[in-house]
C-alpha cells in the first residue's frame, strides 16, 4: 500500500485528531512561553516583553534561602511517606476486600473509604483541627483509656504523622479502586485450580493474586515518582501553623507565603519551573522503570 493509498483510507482519522493537537498546542504549549518570567523581574504592566531580565537571580534566591534545605527535605519526606503508605495500604485493602464474601459488605466498605476523596481540604482542615485539638475527641478518647493527650497538629513530633495519616485516610479509597479493578482481571480458573491442589487463602494470595497484579503495582509505584515534589499543598496549608514550620513547611506553602501573598510572580514562576524540571526527569525515569519492570510503554 503506497502512502497515497494509505492516506486515502486514513485521512478522516488524521482530521479527527487535529482538534486535539490544536488544543494541546494552544492551551498546553503556547502558554509555556510564560516561563520566561522565571528569569525576569516580572511586572504585569510591562508584560513579558518589557519586564527586565535578571538571569538566574530568582533561582539563586530560592536555593540560597535559609529555609531551602528544610522545605525540600520536608517535601520529600512527606511525599515519599505518603506514596509508600498510600500504595501499601491500597494493596492490603484491595486484597482484603477481594476476599470478602458478601458483595454488599464489599461495596459498602469500598464506598465508605472512597467517600473522603470527594471532600475538599478546606472543609476537612476545619474538621481535623477540631478532632485533633487538645480538648478534641481523639484526645478525650485517649484520656479515657489513660493515654496522655498529644498536640497532634502543634508538635514537631506528630505533625508529619498527622499529615500522612489524614492524607492516607482521604486518598486510600481511590487507589484501592484501581487495585480492585486489576484484581478482577485475574482468571478465576487459576484460583480454582490452586484450591483443588489444596492451597489455602494465604497461599493463593501469595502465589496467584499478588503476582497477578504485580505489573499494576510496579506501574503505579513508578508513575507516582512524578509526584515526589507534590506533598499536598492544600492539606498542609489548612493544617500547619508556625510552630511546626520545622517539620511541616513544604516548597508549595513556602512559595505561597513568599510568592503569591506578596505578588512575587517571578519567584513563584521560578519555583514552578524548578519543580517541573525535577518532575520531568522523574517522569522520564518512571516511564523507563515502568517499561523495564512492568512492560508498560507509551511508544
Amino acid at each position: 500500500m503506497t502512502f497515497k493509498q494509505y492516506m486515502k483510507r486514513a485521512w478522516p482519522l488524521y482530521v479527527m485528531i487535529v482538534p486535539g493537537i490544536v488544543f494541546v498546542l494552544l492551551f498546553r504549549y503556547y502558554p509555556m512561553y510564560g516561563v520566561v518570567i522565571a528569569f525576569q523581574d516580572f511586572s504585569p504592566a510591562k508584560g513579558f516583553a518589557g519586564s527586565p531580565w535578571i538571569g538566574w537571580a530568582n533561582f539563586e534566591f530560592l536555593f540560597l534561602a535559609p529555609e531551602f534545605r528544610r522545605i525540600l527535605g520536608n517535601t520529600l519526606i512527606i511525599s515519599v511517606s505518603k506514596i509508600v503508605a498510600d500504595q501499601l495500604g491500597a494493596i492490603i485493602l484491595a486484597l482484603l476486600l477481594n476476599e470478602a464474601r458478601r458483595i454488599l459488605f464489599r461495596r459498602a466498605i469500598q464506598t465508605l473509604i472512597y467517600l473522603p476523596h470527594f471532600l475538599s481540604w478546606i472543609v476537612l482542615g476545619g474538621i481535623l483541627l477540631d478532632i485533633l485539638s487538645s480538648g478534641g475527641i481523639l484526645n478525650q478518647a485517649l484520656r479515657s483509656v489513660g493515654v496522655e493527650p498529644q498536640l497532634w497538629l502543634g508538635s514537631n513530633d506528630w505533625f508529619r504523622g498527622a499529615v500522612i495519616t489524614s492524607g492516607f485516610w482521604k486518598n486510600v479509597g481511590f487507589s484501592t479502586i484501581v487495585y480492585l479493578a486489576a484484581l478482577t482481571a485475574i482468571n478465576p480458573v487459576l484460583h480454582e485450580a490452586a484450591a483443588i491442589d489444596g492451597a489455602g487463602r494465604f497461599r493463593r494470595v501469595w502465589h496467584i493474586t499478588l503476582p497477578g497484579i504485580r505489573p499494576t503495582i510496579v506501574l503505579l509505584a513508578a508513575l507516582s515518582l512524578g509526584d515526589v515534589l507534590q506533598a499536598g499543598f492544600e492539606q498542609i496549608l489548612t493544617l500547619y501553623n508556625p510552630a511546626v514550620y520545622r517539620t511541616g513547611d513544604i516548597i508549595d506553602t513556602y512559595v505561597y507565603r513568599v510568592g503569591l501573598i506578596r505578588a512575587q510572580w517571578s519567584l513563584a514562576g521560578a519555583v514552578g519551573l524548578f519543580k517541573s524540571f525535577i518532575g520531568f526527569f522523574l517522569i522520564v525515569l518512571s516511564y523507563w522503570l515502568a517499561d523495564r519492570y512492568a512492560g508498560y510503554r507509551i511508544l
Partner: protein
Amino acid sequence: MNKRFPYNTSDLKPSRRDFMRLGGTSLAAAMMMRAGLPPALAQGMGEIPADLHPGSPNNPRGWATTLPPIPEGMPVDPPVTITGSRRGPWEFADGDDIENSPFTRLNAAVTGINWKLAFTWTDNEGEVLQKYNLAIASDELPDFMETVPLQIYSELLDNDLIEDITDVWDEVAHPVWLKEAMGFSDGIAWRLAEVNGRKMGVPYIEQAAQNDKVLWIRQDWLDAVGMSAPTTIEELHAVMTAFVAADMGQGGEGTTLGIAANRQVNTWYCSLDPIFGAWGVMPRFWTPDENGDLQYDSVRPEIKEVLGTLRQWYSEGLLAPDFFTFAPWQNSGTHISGNLAGLMYSPAFGAVYGLPDSVANDPDARWAFGDIPMGPTGIKKKAWSNPVPDTVYVFRKGFEHVDLVLKQMAWWAELLQNPKNRYHGFEGTAYFWRDDDGEIDPMGGTLDLNGYDDTKHIWGPPGTNGGSRTDPFYETNWIKERRNVWANTPDGERDALMEAFLGGDPLSVLWDEANVFAVDHWEADGIKNHFLTVPTRTMERAGASLDGLEAETYINIINGQEPLDRFDAFAEEWRSGGGDRITDEVNEWWRGQM
C-alpha cells in the same frame, strides 16, 4: 472661598473632637445654624421624583429621609457614562442589577452620571490581582478603579497610568464631607493616596477603632469567683487563674482557659496585642524611637519580657495547650462559642461574633466589656486599628470627569453620614416591613433590617463592598444619634427604625456601647504602625522568611519548645537576615514623609 457649595468653610470648622463631643446629634443643626441655613435643606429636592426617594415616609410607623441639596451644576446635561470596577458580591431585587438599582436611579437623577461595570471580583486576595493585572496588560483600564490593592497601585504609579487629581480635589472636593472628614489623625488617610505631595487617588476609609480591642469578660464567672474586672495585668492573671482553678468552662474536665488566644499575637480577634501594649511594644508595627527614626517593635528587648510572661501563663495552663494551631476566626467556633474561655481581647463587634453562640450554648452566660488592664509600669496601650487599609480609589490617566465623581461622593457622603438625614436605605432593598406572622407587610408592622448595610451598591465611597466611608466616625455618630433619640422619645412614639436597632437583642446593644467606648479610647490608647506604604525591596525578598522566623520563634518560646533566650538569637538573625536593610529602607521612606 468655594462658591460651589452652600457651606462656607471659614464659618464652620467643627474639629473632629467637636464632632465627637456633639455626638452628631446637634452637629448638623449647629453647622447649619452657623452657616445661616434653614435646618431643612429643601433646595433641589423637588427635582427628584418621589419614587426614587429612599426611606418609607408613607408608612404610619416610617420616617422620611432628608436629601442633601443637589450639587451645583448637577445633574449634568447631557448625562455622562463612567466605567468602573467593582468588588462583589451583591444581590438585587428582580430586574435590578449593579448598573440599574435604586441607588443608580437616584444617583442618575441627582448627578446625571450613569455607571457602567468594567469588571468585578469577589475574592479579595487572588482574583482582584488577576483582574487588575489583566486590565493593565490589555490596556483597558476603567475610568474609576475601586479598592485597588497596594501592588496594583504601585504598578499603576510606576507606569504612569493614574490621573493626578490634586487640582480638581482642591477646587471641587466638599469642604466638610470630603476634605474635613478625611483630615482625621494628622491626615493619615492620605499616606497612600498622596505621592510626593500630589493626590493620586481617593483614600479608602473604614470605621475608627474597628479592630481596637476591649476586654470581654464573663461577668457571671467573675461573680462566681467573687472578683471584679481586672485593671492591671497582675489582676488579669489572678482572674484567669481563678477561672481555671474553678474550672468554670462548659467543656470536659480541666479544659477551661484563662484567655482565648491564637497563632497570631497581634490580630483582629482573640488577640494578645493589649498584653504587648502593657509593656509599650507592638509586634509587627513600626514605631518611632527616641530619635524619631522608625524601629521594628517585634525585635525590641521589651518583647522578651512579654514573651516571658506569656510563656509563664502557658506553663500554668492559662492558654490552650494548642492555642497556636488556631487561626483567629477559629477561636470563635471553639473557645468562645464552646464556653471554654471567659476572657478575650476582641473588638466591639465581638459582641455579635462568637458571643451569640456562647449565650445560645449557655443561657446563663452574661458577657460584659471593660477597658484593657495596664502593665507593671502603668502603661495601657493596644494596637491602633488603622481605618485606612492598603487600598485606594484611583482614576484612569486622562479621565475627564474626576470633578463629577468627587461631587457625587460628597452628596452620598452627606446623605449617609449626617445622622440627621436619617438615611436607612430603600424599602424593599435594605429593609422590609413585616407583620406579627413574619409575612411581608407593606404597611405597618415591624422592621426587618436584613441586608441593612446595602450601601455597597453605591459606586465609589461612601459605598463600596467592605464598608468604605469618607468619615471614620460615621458609625459612632449614628449610634450616638440613635441612643439620643431613643432616650428622648417616649415609649410608643419611637419609630420602627429606632426599635429595630435598639429594642431588640441585648448583644447588639452591647456592641453599640463597646463601639462608642473603643472610639473614645482610640487615639489615647493606640500604638500606631507608622509604616504605611508599599513593601520595600528587601521586604519583598526577605519578608516572608523573616515573618516566618518571627512567628515560629514567638510561638515556640511561648509554648516552651525553645528557651526564652532564643529571642536574643532571633533578634540577631532578624537583623542580619535582612532586617537591618529593611530598617534602612523604611527610614529612607520615613524621612521622605517629614
